[in-house]
């Protein structure tokens, strides 16, 4: 169970709320819970993770119990329950990618960033993890970077170095 030591009140922006409201119109009257996954994505894109306070606010907006949001957010692997690096490199680690060197790429990223899977670099800029099949096996090895989920294919150690350099320049 998560122990929350710090309680930060958050307020969704008017822009975010208006996006929530548009999403709710996609479903029949009274079925607004269907908006939960799209809303979680929007919230994560805004804050970098999904905090308990954010989930409570989402529950209030959708008029559902907070536990219903916790249940859903913890089921799906895309939602971060803890703060992450500014850029999260998600490398596919499933069979077809491993046939052409995904494990080597993960070792390389670990060495380059200097942090283990799931950890955040000291400057708060990077974290990385292995994820299951990203459905791009023909372009393997691959990785993606949220919140836009830009996609990087046919990775080599060199192309990963270049990618990390480019990201550093964006900071």
């Amino acid at each position: 169970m998560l122990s929350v030591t710090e309680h930060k009140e958050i307020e969704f922006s008017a822009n975010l709320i208006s996006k929530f409201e548009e999403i709710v119109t996609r479903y029949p009257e009274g079925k607004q819970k269907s908006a939960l996954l799209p809303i979680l994505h929007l919230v994560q894109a805004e804050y970098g993770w999904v905090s308990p306070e954010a989930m409570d606010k989402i529950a209030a907006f959708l008029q559902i119990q907070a536990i219903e949001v916790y249940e859903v957010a913890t089921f799906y692997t895309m939602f971060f329950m803890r703060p992450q690096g500014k850029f999260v490199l998600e490398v596919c680690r499933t069979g077809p990618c491993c046939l052409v060197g995904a494990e080597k790429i993960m070792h390389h990223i670990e060495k380059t960033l200097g942090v283990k899977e799931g950890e955040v670099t000291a400057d708060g800029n990077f974290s990385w993890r292995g994820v299951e099949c990203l459905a791009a096996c023909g372009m393997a090895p691959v990785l993606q970077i949220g919140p836009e989920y830009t996609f990087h294919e046919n990775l080599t150690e060199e192309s990963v170095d270049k990618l990390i350099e480019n990201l550093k320049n964006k900071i």
Partner: protein
Amino acid sequence: MSDKVKVTIDGITVEVEPGTSILNAARQIGGDIVPPAMCYYSKLEGSGGKCRTCLVKVSKGSEKDPRPMPKLVASCRTGVMDGMEVQNITSPEVIEARKGVVEILLINHPLDCPVCDQAGECHLQDLSYEHGVADTRYEFDRRTFEKIDIGDKIQLHMTRCILCYRCVYVADQITDNRVHGILGRGDASEISTYIEKAIENDFSGNVIDVCPVGALTDKTFRFKNRVWFTKPVDAHRDCPKCKGKVTLWYKGEEVLRVTGRKDQYGEVEDFICNTCRFDTKNTSDWVIEGPRHISHTSVISSNHYEMTLLPVIKENPILIEANKIEFDRATKV
């Protein structure tokens, strides 16, 4: 009124209302042919289908469409059809699958029965005794969690949980708001409130009664005594919140705990409120009806397990072979 439908389970035919599940049809017959159920609870809508201990073989789909069903089905969630024929303990395939389910349910169970308050009235204990094998082939660390108090009356020991979802259905259907649920996924799923929260409402204590194992226990009874040393007595009181029909569990003159009245399948007759369960533990609070009938095979009445040999198996050499372990154990007694 619709006509009743005929279903045959292990050679015994019964007529039931249309829409009845195979499991409930079997319960109408009663006895050895009733499949065990760890997650299904007749008073909780949507429950069942998950534990897979009640799997049976449908050898004939119905009179209209006699084809057998291709896979074993969960009897708790499969409706009977007119003319359906079902095999439970007469099917070696079912016995084998059930043995597998029991083994799988136990690989991550702590087997801490000697220190578990549920011992003696634990469905997993009964199930493994009747259908399991003595040895495990699992050689890895078992999944563990910290014990958590959810409120001052209920303890959650997730390590023992088999994820039957019954307590979640109770919170959804019996209480006015649900604060606990299933978090995470796969074998990392857990019952939790996510952020530490007490479960506080008038009917929350029912999660203890529906829990088939010792994952949710009554803190007011914790380590007070073994259930088989206590005497169950049916009693009632005028309660403004619930029907007030309970079982009191006595040790000498003292009421150690209060539970709902459970039937032979471990289901309560009525859900009871927390006042009856936790706050009225004097004999003077209650009108005593008499001793609770407990099955003679239960550890609560006999202090030890014994098992009568399944009559169908006894007469069938193939089944004797398929149930060798149970057979040996039963014939030893």
